[in-house]
């Protein structure tokens, strides 16, 4: 039994390390997004825009969420949009409460998952689009994004 004590203590320590979540009921319902609406936002934007496509059931999305939250909080002059796809309001609000309660990210819901396809992507999640001001697509990253790639593409869209 004593052999397993360090493992038990490690697991207890890890269990205590989870971040504090907001109450999902405090998160307002997500507005329903449309392809035309998102394209209008992009065309009218005088700032670079990052669109991150996510779903509450997607494990890799959970993995990259802390990085996106940190990037949105630390980056000025870039508009961050979260596009929740193939999901329901309840799950989406729970995810936002857990990862993005205070992050400066506008979230939309797209239950059909058609918007990323209309923007030139696929139905896969997660996916991140990087746009220069005026809506020019600079980069499309499919899959989990790492800090280096995110920082590089943010630098790229801010330099245009």
């Amino acid at each position, binding site marked *: 039994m004593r052999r397993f004590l360090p493992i038990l203590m490690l*697991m207890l320590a*890890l*269990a205590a*390390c*989870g*971040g*504090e979540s907001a109450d999902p009921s405090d998160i307002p319902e997500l507005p329903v997004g449309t392809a035309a609406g998102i394209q209008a936002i992009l065309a009218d934007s005088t700032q670079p825009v990052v669109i991150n496509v996510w779903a509450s059931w997607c*494990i*890799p999305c*959970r*993995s*990259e*969420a*802390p*990085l996106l939250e*940190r*990037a949105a909080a*630390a*980056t000025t002059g870039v508009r961050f949009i979260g596009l929740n796809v193939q999901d329901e309001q309840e799950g989406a609000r729970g995810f936002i409460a857990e*990862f993005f309660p205070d992050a400066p990210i506008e979230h939309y819901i797209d239950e059909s998952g058609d918007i990323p396809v209309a923007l030139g992507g696929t139905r896969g999640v997660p996916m991140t689009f990087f746009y220069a001001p005026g809506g020019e697509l*600079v*980069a499309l990253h499919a*899959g*989990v994004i*790492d*800090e*280096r*790639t*995110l*920082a*590089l593409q*943010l*630098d*790229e869209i801010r*330099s245009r």
Partner: protein
Amino acid sequence: MAMVPVYLVLYWEARRGNAASCTRDLWDIALSAAATGLLVGRLGAMVAGGVNPITHPADILIVRGGVATGPAVMAALATVAWLGRSQLWVIADGLSAAALAGLAGWHSGCLVRGTCLGTPSDLPWAVAQNGSAITRHPVEIYTAIALIAGAGVIAGLRFRGRLAPGVATGSALAYAAAIRLATEPLRPSLGPGPIGWYAVGVAVGAALVVWAIRRSVARPVAEPGA
């Protein structure tokens, strides 16, 4: 891409520098250290990001979500120290060049992931992303080249038997940390990055080299056959 250079360097050294019976041990320890470092580094990144590893165990497998450098290196070194405790400096020195080569392989993985580029540069060898006019430092390639050169120098000195026990280990640690410290300003980043960890690595590696040299002067290693 990290473990292939480790294997190649160990295989190469097996015929020249390592004790005849220890190359297989070195490979086993290298694999164990890499796996432990990856696991602890991933757990560290998850905890730092506010994700509970107990309630979300599947997230541990998404290594691309981030690996905390400091905890990963400490866990890898602790694994080497524990598994090689019976002949610590033979094992640690035997792994030093291979570890630098492995790190070079890890950095050259950017060629597969498309993440080699750093801050903007006008140098003739600077590279632009597809569709971009902004040329950038291929910073991960700089790092990989510097690390592989360091691996070659340390392996060469070991072959000539010119290093006291512990010097190769300290030199490799200090060199790897110094290369990361020197190239960090060339990487686009969302924050200062783990610069403090790299500075600690340089200091610990340099202290180890000084300690090993002083120890060997005070207690010279016996010549083979003496």
